[in-house]
C-alpha cells in the first residue's frame, strides 16, 4: 500500500514557513491563517496515517539524500504505531496552540515571523518523528533546537528572554554532544545509521549500554532531565503558547521519543535502562519538590513538566515501555491544556505571579473548568487521563521489582497532587489578592475553544489505555508488551495519595484552617528547594566561573604571546621591507635596465656553463 501522502505532512508546514518568511511581514495578522491551514492539513493527513496504521499498515517511504562512497544517507518517512501516535499528538497540539495564539499574540509586531517559526518548529518535530535513521533524526533534532531557540527568544528585546533562549540552546547542546558521540560510535561499530538495520543487529551488552547512555544524554538535554533540566524553567520567557507547544508535544517530547524509538537498542544493554530509570526518578522527585515552592504560574507548570518527563523516563527505564509512551500521550493533552489555560489567565491578568491572582473562578468560567480538569489529570485522579498512565508506570515499577523507585514515585504523585491544587486554589479561588486585575475577563473564543477541545481530551484520552478498553493503547503501541494485570494495591495507593495531596492543598490554601507558615521560610530545606537545589549556582561556580577564568587566561596568552609573535614577525617584515623599498625607485627605466643586466648575465651563463656554442 502506497503512502506517498506522508511527505506532505512535513512539506506543508515547511511551505507555510517559506511563504511566511517571504510574505509574513506584509500579510501581518493574516499570516496566521496560512500557518493554521497548513497545520490542519498536516493534522488531517496524520489522522489518515493513524487510521492506515490501525488498518495494519506499517511502511517506510525512502528517498536517497546523499551518497558518500558506500555510505548512503536516506531521507525517509517511517510510519508505525509509535510515529503515527506522535504525528497526531504533535499536529493536534500544534493546531490548537496556533489557533490559541491568534488570540494570545494578537497585535504582536512580529506576528508573521511567529507563525513561520511555529510552522517550522512543528515541521522539524514531524520530521524527527518520521525519521527512519539517526542522521535524519539528528538533523530534525537540531532543527527543533534552533526553532525552540528562536521561539523562546521571540521577545528578544527582553534581556531575560534572549538569555533564556541562549541557555536553552547551550544546555541542550551539552546533551546533543552525547547524542552525536553515540551516533559516531554506532556508525563505527555497525556501519549504518538506519534504525531498522541497527535494531536487528547484535551488540555486546556493554557497548549497547554505552551507546544508549550517550544517546540518553541527548534525551536528558532535550527532555530536561536531571542534571540538564535548568533550561526549561527559564524557557518560560517565551510566549505562553510556545511553552505549551514545547512542553506538551514537540521539544521535550523529542527526548522521550528518542528513547522510545531507540528502545530496542536500550534493551540490548539493560544497564542503560537502569540508568534511565534512576535519572527519571531523581528528576521526577526533585522537580516536584521545586514546584512546591515556585510562585510563578508558568514555573510551577514547568517543573511539573520536568517531573512528568521524569515519570516517563522512569516508566521507560523500568521496562514499562507502553506505559511511558502512554504517559507521553496523555501528558501532551493535559499539559498543553494547563499551559494554554495559564496563558489565558496571564492574558487576562497580565501577571504570572500566582499570589497576585485569586478568585478568577467567578470571572473566567471556561478557563477555570478546563484548568481544573487539567489539574485533576495531572494529579492523577481517576478517571482523568493522567491517572491511567501514571498508574501504569507505577505498576510497571512495582512489578519489575524497583521498590525504591516505586515508593519515590508514589511520594512524587503526592507532591504532584499537592502543588497542582495549591496552584488551582490560589489562582482560581479565594479573594483577588491584587486589585489590578479587576478587569479580568474570559478570553476570546479562539482561545477558549482550544481549551475546551484539550479539556475533552484530557478527560478521555486516558480511557484508551485503561482496563475498561482492555489497554487498547498499549496493545497498539507495543504489541509485544502485554499489559500488566491490574494491581488494586498500586491503584488504590495512587488514588489515595492524589486525594491526600489535594486535601492537603485545600487545607493549606483553600481554607484558613492552617497557619500561614507551617514551614518557616528560613528553614534550610525550604531554602534548598526554593532555590532549585542551587543547581544554577552550582553550574555557575563549577562550570561557568572556571571557564571564564580559563578564558581570561587564554585571552591574555593570546594577546601577549601569540599576538606578540605575530606582531613581531609583522614588524620585522615591515622593517625589512622599508629597508628593501629603496630598491624600488618607481622608474620603469631603472627596472628595465636591471632586467637587461640580468638578461646579459643569463646569456653569458647559458653559454659558459650549459656549453652552448
Amino acid at each position: 500500500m502506497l503512502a506517498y501522502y506522508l511527505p506532505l505532512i512535513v512539506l506543508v508546514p515547511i511551505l507555510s514557513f517559506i511563504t511566511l518568511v517571504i510574505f509574513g511581514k506584509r500579510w501581518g495578522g493574516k499570516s496566521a491563517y496560512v500557518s493554521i491551514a497548513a497545520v490542519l492539513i498536516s493534522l488531517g493527513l496524520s489522522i489518515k496515517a493513524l487510521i492506515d496504521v490501525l488498518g495494519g499498515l506499517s511502511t517506510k517511504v525512502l528517498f536517497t539524500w546523499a551518497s558518500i562512497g558506500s555510505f548512503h544517507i536516506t531521507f525517509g518517512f517511517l510510519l508505525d504505531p509509535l510515529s503515527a501516535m506522535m504525528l497526531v499528538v504533535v499536529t493536534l497540539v500544534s493546531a490548537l496552540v496556533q489557533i490559541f495564539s491568534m488570540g494570545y499574540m494578537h497585535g504582536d509586531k512580529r506576528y508573521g515571523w511567529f507563525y513561520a517559526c511555529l510552522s517550522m518548529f512543528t515541521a522539524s518535530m514531524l520530521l524527527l518523528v518520521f525519521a527512519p535513521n539517526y542522521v535524519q533524526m539528528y538533523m530534525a533534532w537540531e532543527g527543533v533546537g534552533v526553532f525552540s531557540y528562536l521561539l523562546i527568544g521571540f521577545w528578544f528585546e527582553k534581556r531575560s528572554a534572549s538569555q533564556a533562549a541562549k541557555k536553552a540552546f547551550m544546555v541542550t547542546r551539552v546533551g546533543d554532544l552525547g547524542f552525536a558521540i553515540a551516533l559516531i560510535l554506532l556508525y563505527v561499530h555497525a556501519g549504518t545509521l538506519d534504525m531498522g538495520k541497527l535494531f536487528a543487529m547484535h551488540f555486546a551488552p556493554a557497548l549497547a549500554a554505552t551507546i544508549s547512555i550517550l544517546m540518553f544524554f541527548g534525551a536528558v538535554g532535550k527532555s530536561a532531565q536531571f542534571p540538564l533540566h535548568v533550561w526549561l524553567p527559564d524557557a518560560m520567557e517565551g510566549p505562553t503558547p510556545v511553552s505549551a507547544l514545547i512542553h506538551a508535544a514537540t521539544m521535550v517530547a523529542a527526548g522521550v521519543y528518542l528513547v522510545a524509538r531507540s528502545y530496542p537498542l536500550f534493551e540490548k544493554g539493560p544497564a542503560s535502562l537502569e540508568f534511565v530509570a534512576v535519572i527519571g526518578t531523581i528528576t521526577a522527585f526533585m522537580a516536584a519538590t521545586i514546584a512546591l515552592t515556585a510562585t510563578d504560574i508558568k514555573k510551577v507548570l514547568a517543573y511539573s513538566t520536568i517531573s512528568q518527563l521524569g515519570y516517563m523516563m522512569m516508566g521507560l527505564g523500568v521496562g514499562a515501555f507502553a506505559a511511558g509512551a502512554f504517559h507521553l500521550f496523555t501528558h501532551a493533552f493535559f499539559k498543553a491544556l494547563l499551559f494554554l489555560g495559564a496563558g489565558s489567565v496571564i492574558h487576562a491578568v497580565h501577571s504570572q505571579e500566582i499570589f497576585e491572582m485569586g478568585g478568577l473562578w467567578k470571572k473566567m468560567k471556561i478557563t477555570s473548568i478546563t484548568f481544573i480538569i487539567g489539574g485533576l489529570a495531572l494529579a492523577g485522579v481517576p478517571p482523568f487521563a493522567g491517572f491511567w498512565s501514571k498508574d501504569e508506570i507505577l505498576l510497571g515499577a512495582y512489578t519489575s521489582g524497583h521498590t525504591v523507585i516505586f515508593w519515590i514515585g508514589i511520594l512524587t504523585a503526592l507532591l504532584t497532587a499537592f502543588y497542582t491544587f495549591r496552584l488551582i486554589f490560589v489562582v482560581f479561588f479565594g479573594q483577588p489578592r491584587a486589585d489590578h486585575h479587576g478587569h479580568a475577563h474570559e478570553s476570546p473564543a479562539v482561545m477558549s475553544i482550544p481549551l475546551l477541545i484539550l479539556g475533552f481530551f484530557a478527560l478521555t484520552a486516558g480511557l484508551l489505555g485503561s482496563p475498561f478498553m482492555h489497554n487498547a493503547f498499549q496493545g497498539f503501541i507495543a504489541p509485544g508488551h502485554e499489559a500488566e494485570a491490574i494491581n488494586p494495591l498500586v491503584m488504590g495507593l495512587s488514588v489515595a495519595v492524589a486525594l491526600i495531596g489535594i486535601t492537603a492543598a485545600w487545607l493549606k490554601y483553600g481554607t484558613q484552617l492552617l497557619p500561614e507558615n507551617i514551614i518557616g521560610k528560613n528553614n534550610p530545606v525550604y531554602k534548598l528547594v526554593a532555590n532549585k537545589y542551587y543547581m544554577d549556582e552550582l553550574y555557575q561556580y563549577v562550570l561557568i566561573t572556571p571557564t571564564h577564568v580559563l578564558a581570561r587566561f587564554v585571552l591574555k596568552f593570546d594577546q601577549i604571546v601569540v599576538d606578540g609573535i605575530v606582531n613581531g614577525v609583522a614588524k620585522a617584515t615591515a622593517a625589512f621591507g622599508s629597508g628593501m623599498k629603496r630598491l624600488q625607485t618607481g622608474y620603469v627605466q631603472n627596472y628595465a635596465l636591471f632586467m637587461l643586466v640580468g638578461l646579459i648575465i643569463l646569456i653569458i651563463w647559458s653559454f659558459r656553463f650549459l656549453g652552448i656554442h
Partner: protein
Amino acid sequence: MNDIITYIIFFGLSAVAIISALAIITRRNLFHAAMFLGLLMLVVAGFYFLLDADLVGIMQVFVYVGGVIVVLLFGIMMTSQMTNVRMVSAIKQKVFTILAVAGFVALLVSVFTKVNLSVSNAAVPKDTTSLVGKLFMTNYILPFEVMSVLLLAALIGAIVIARQEVKQ
C-alpha cells in the same frame, strides 16, 4: 656586378637606418624624430624587399608609414610638447646604461659572427601573398584569430583610455 649594387643598396640602407635610429633618440624635436622614424620604417621595408619578402615590405609601408606614423604625429600634436623636450631622464644611469647596452650588442654580434648558421639554398616561393593568406587560414588560424581579438581590444581600449570624461 649585380652583387656590387646589392652591396651598395645594403650598406646604404644600413647607414640610413642607423643614422635615423640615432636621430630618433637624440632629436629634441619630437616631430623630427617622428619623421626619422618614418624614414627608418621605409628603410626597414627596403630590407624586406631585399630579403624577397615583398608582402611584408608593402605591409610595413602600409601599416607603419601610413598608419602608425600618422597616429604618432597626431599624438605628438595633441600633447603640445613637440619641440625642445627634455631628453635626459632624471634617473642617473646614463653611463651604466650605455655600457650595459654596448655589452649586450657586443655579445649579440659575437654570437652572430661565431655561430655557424645553416643557410639553405631552397627556392623562394613565387607568390608570397597567397601563401601567406593560406597560412593565415590554416597553420596560423589561432594566432590570427587571437590577433584580431587583440586588435579589437586595443581599438576599444585606446578609445576608452584616451576619451575625455564628459563633464555635465
